[in-house]
């Protein structure tokens, strides 16, 4: 099993982003996902900048995948996606059906990202025909569902693709036409002033009792908790997981990578750095919530 660095979900200043990835060259990560997955107005790095960075990291020996937007609405967003697919050197992380279709039409290999809805082996088998090489299950699928799916795929006689599981970071939960950051700041979506840049780990949202609950990240909503599957490594190995994904956070990504890298070579399961991911165990994603069948 190897580590991957998932796409940067937040909006960081250009120099900060470039410095982050240059630092990542030295990290024990096999694959890096590059590109904007949340909001096309975030242009500290434009498409050509992401591609140039991808070339640089690939030349340094990393596997690079170009990630695409989870929600595509405008023609300009479709053009940017087409440029990524047409580049030709890299796999694409398809985060919606538009990317799947463009990869399928052009014969470009792709990774199904977690916002593409793949819940069963038949859907996965079709995507494999379309060019899927790696599957990142959606956040709400735990080890039992993934195992059932892969066994059903085996029974169908379809070779398994690579499997990548979200191992560390904040879980992406939803996407909207609305920009929640703009709403929180009481500014129009079209006049947002790119204020996401002020919230490099998203904007915290808590309940009226002060319990940390969600993170607002532009048009995306995430869980507030940073989840950590390091203690689940024995089960991840049993399942045959190929890659463990780390989502960049403003602080501590390097520590998380080192922690997971240690866990991968340790003989006994390591203590978690972050929260338990309930989804992995068939429970609500938010840790500490009652099981769905208990109510």
């Amino acid at each position, binding site marked *: 099993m190897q580590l991957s660095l998932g796409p940067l979900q937040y909006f960081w200043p250009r120099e900060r982003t470039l410095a982050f990835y240059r630092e990542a060259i030295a990290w024990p990560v096999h694959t890096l996902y590059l590109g904007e997955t949340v909001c096309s107005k975030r242009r500290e790095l434009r498409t050509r900048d992401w591609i140039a960075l991808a070339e640089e990291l690939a030349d340094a020996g990393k596997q690079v995948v170009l990630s695409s937007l989870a929600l595509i609405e405008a023609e300009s967003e479709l053009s940017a996606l087409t440029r990524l697919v047409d580049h030709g050197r890299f796999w694409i992380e398809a985060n919606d059906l538009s990317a799947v279709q463009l990869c399928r039409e052009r014969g470009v290999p792709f990774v199904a990202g977690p916002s593409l*809805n793949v819940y069963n082996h038949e859907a996965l088998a079709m995507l494999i025909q379309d060019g899927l090489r790696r599957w990142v299950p959606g956040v709400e699928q735990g080890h039992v569902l993934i195992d059932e799916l892969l066994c059903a795929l085996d029974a169908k006689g379809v070779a398994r693709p690579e499997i990548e599981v979200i191992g560390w970071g904040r879980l992406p939960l939803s996407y909207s036409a609305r920009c929640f950051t703009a709403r929180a700041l009481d500014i129009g979506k079209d006049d947002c002033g790119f204020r996401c840049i002020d919230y490099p780990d998203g904007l915290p949202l808590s309940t009226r009792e002060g319990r940390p609950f969600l993170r607002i990240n532009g048009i995306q909503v995430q869980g507030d908790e940073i989840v950590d599957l390091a203690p689940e490594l024995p089960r991840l190995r049993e399942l045959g997981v190929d890659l463990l994904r780390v989502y960049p956070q403003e602080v501590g990504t390097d520590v998380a990578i080192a922690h997971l890298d240690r866990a991968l070579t340790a003989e006994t399961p390591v203590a978690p750095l972050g929260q338990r991911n309930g989804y992995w165990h068939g429970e609500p994603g938010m840790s500490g919530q009652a099981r769905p069948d208990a109510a």
Partner: protein
Amino acid sequence: MQLVCPAGNLPALRTAIDAGADAVYLGFRDQTNARAFPGLNFDDNEIRQGIAYAHARGRQVYLALNTYPDSARLAHWHRAVDQAAELGVDAIIAAEMGVLDYACRTHPKLARHLSVQGSATTAPALRYAFERFGIARAVLPRVLSVQQVERLCQNAPIPLEVFAFGSLCIMVEGRCQLSSYVTGASPNRHGVCSPARFVRWDEHDGGERSVRLNDVLIDRFQPEEPAAYPTVCKGRYGVGGEIFHALEEPTSLNTLELLPRLAQAGVAALKIEGRQRGAAYVDAVTRTWRAAIDRHRVAPEAWTAQPAWQNTLSAHAEGHQTTLGPYHRAWH
């Protein structure tokens, strides 16, 4: 433009047909559809009666099979497709690739509509569903502006259906895990958002009420303050030191004033949300849209959104508020 109306049960179906729906949509009484609420939906016998009632009046019945089965449960969804074909519904509305593929291969004559849960917002995404599953129509997610809908009508390989009225789901349908994050029960997998069995209302001294979803505080209400059904996205939370509806206020989508533009764009059907709503809602909302569409068909140049229509729709809107939502770019 066709008017497609919700039928949560058989009386609602008859009401919608009598009020002028061109088609109604409904679901089985299980997790195969995205409104698997207790007390809603149909068994086979009720569907047969519903189809007979609709077909006798020249109207259509669509069956929603718009949830996402995992591998172990996929066979159940396949059987639901078989049942739909056997019952003689006019189309199924589905989003999941395994379900659509099975329907396409096994019952090619049964029309397939791509559900809003399919999250198809672009011409390539629609092309995928058309080439792979031979869909006859797609329902667009409620995330596009009217200009984007117009452009998509020009580029799509199949006719499009858009939401016209009803409770506003603000997230991209089919890709929202807020309910499952809190309860473990998800709209995609279990057909329910914010299941009632996880909802707890508490009344406090002075008449204030609080509502929790699986013990997470969603909102508090003053004694006289109206309270909508508690979903995570319509609660009030603290962000940056202020308490407000950080994701969305309880409100309904109402696109009545856009009707001429949607007609001009070539939208094939307008969808009314609300299988969980009562007969009075179905009756009033269907009649209003029927009148608006008919008036437009007869005299498109002279058409204006009548205040009486808007008043009726507002009266049946969530929180008595309506919005153009994402159809209008300034929405935030």
